């Protein structure tokens, strides 16, 4: 086909192409680009009684970095991530390896049982665990003699809620990756006399490292933005779950309880930048392995 014959059709496609992506582009600008730029701008200003909004350079960021409440929130989510992420990914991996190996009907029922918490709103998952933790309505504290809502334990109790809600989701992603590995790889290991546990640990797990990287990134992203679970459980022990419990809870209360929009924007922008840059560095560093192209 000559260039001259092709041109009119490409022209028609160009118009159609633009028309087709217009709704998406408009939404992208209105609800992603514009708010992001607006947050950036807000974070560089300060609201004063005398002069109104004044340009304050990076003052809000400097304040945030030196703010003990913000810093303790950051420390808390980092600690949370360091403990909860490996535990949850570990459970998900074990579960995925088990359902990959077993072919019984029970393993299909198990797959459903593990995945169903993901379908429940975080608000309701947290409510249910809140009732289960409470010594008045739940069995857990009388069974174990542990106060699940004290300031020393509530972080772990929150970690359990997140693990419960997301382990099955991660299990399905890992299971799908396991299913994608050619069976011959396992068969030859078996012929060499490797047992089921050995095959799982030495062969299957390394084969799905790309998927493991992916679910780890998504978990870390979620962890840094930790918000709904602590906010819902807050009335059960407001002394333990403070208004600055996590950076996101802090940003929320700064904006909507104290009307400190500029400071709130700086906190969430800082947090967002860490998440954004962090996940891209992570993705880039593991690009060859990871499948997110």
């Amino acid at each position: 086909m000559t260039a001259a014959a092709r041109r009119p059709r490409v022209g028609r496609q160009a118009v159609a192409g633009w028309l087709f992506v217009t709704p998406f582009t408009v939404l992208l600008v209105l609800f992603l680009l514009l708010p992001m730029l607006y947050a950036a701008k807000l974070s560089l200003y300060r609201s004063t009684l005398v002069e109104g909004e004044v340009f304050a350079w990076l003052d809000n960021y400097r304040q945030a970095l030196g703010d003990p409440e913000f810093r303790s929130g950051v420390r808390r989510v980092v600690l949370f991530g360091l403990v909860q992420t490996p535990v949850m990914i570990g459970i998900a991996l074990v579960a995925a390896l088990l359902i990959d190996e077993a072919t019984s009907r029970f393993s299909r029922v198990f797959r459903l049982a593990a995945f169903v918490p993901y379908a429940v709103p975080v608000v309701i998952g947290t409510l249910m665990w809140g009732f289960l933790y409470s010594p008045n309505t739940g069995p857990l504290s009388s069974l174990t003699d542990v106060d699940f809502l004290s300031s020393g334990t509530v972080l772990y109790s929150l970690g359990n809620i997140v693990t419960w809600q997301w382990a099955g989701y991660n299990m399905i992603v890992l299971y799908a990756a396991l299913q994608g590995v050619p069976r011959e790889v396992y068969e030859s290991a078996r012929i060499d006399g490797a047992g089921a546990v050995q095959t799982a640990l030495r062969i299957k797990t390394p084969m799905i490292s790309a998927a493991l990287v992916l679910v780890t990134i998504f978990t870390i992203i979620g962890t840094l933005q930790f918000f709904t679970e602590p906010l819902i459980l807050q009335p059960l022990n407001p002394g333990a779950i403070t208004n600055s419990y996590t950076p996101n809870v802090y940003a929320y209360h700064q904006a909507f309880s104290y009307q400190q929009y500029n400071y709130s924007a700086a906190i969430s922008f800082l947090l967002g930048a860490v998440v954004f840059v962090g996940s891209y560095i992570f993705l880039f560093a593991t690009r060859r392995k990871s499948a997110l192209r």
Partner: protein
Amino acid sequence: MSRPARTTGGRIASHAVMALMAAYFLLPFWWLLVASTKDNDGLFGSAPLWFSGDFELFDNLSLLWRHDGGVYLRWLRNSALYSVVSGIGATAVAALAGYAFAKLRFPGRNLLFAALLGLIMVPATVLVLPTYLLMSEAGLTDTVWAVILPSLLNPFGVYLLRVYAHDAVPDEMLEAARIDGAGELRVFRSVALPAMRPALVTVLLFTMVATWNNFFLPLVMLSDSDLFPLTVGLRTWYQSATLGNAGPALFNVVVVGALVAIVPLIVAFLLLQRYWRGGLTIGALK
């Protein structure tokens, strides 16, 4: 596919681990089911994981419909409205864009798609406050649009549908339809859409469930309790029951409200398992 027989001991061990894990995942649901048959005193006075002897489920339900002037039914309707409108809208927008990115040649296509990939990771956290302030300038906070409009944007759905359309929509059929004189919109409707159907259902399902479950956005955007979705509404009830600042604490209403809110999700989940798993695996892996 033949698998070598495993030792019986190994099978028992692996099934025991699965049984233990399944008990953990199902425990809260069992508790919720049992608790929804108890009245408020029964919640506090009987064994948490077993029935109390009375069966109060229907009384609880009728209490739920009447509590606070029947506002729960409004919340249920709102959740349904937000998730259906956002789900259909977002899927339509993503289908058009995903198809165009995969199959149409237009200047700026690669640039725009690169922008999408760059922005897909922007965390929602950063966006909620400025979106609220912008909405408030536009006078749209405390309206249904404040929840629906931002939910129409689904960059991951566009990405997923682009990946899917790339392989599933045959170029020859598009070309043949064009030679037959079909306009681009018609080509899209009669050739591309049917071929993209499984992925469209997945995106629709995910957007609907995400909107049904959304909490942060409606929490910030809405202050009129008549506009609340279930998530925000139940949280306000739970909060006032726990803090005890709104008259008699009616935990049984919260419990049965939570049950009613997740029943449609569990039904959708069980009926549409194929599509759930599809969504987790199409875009992310392979």
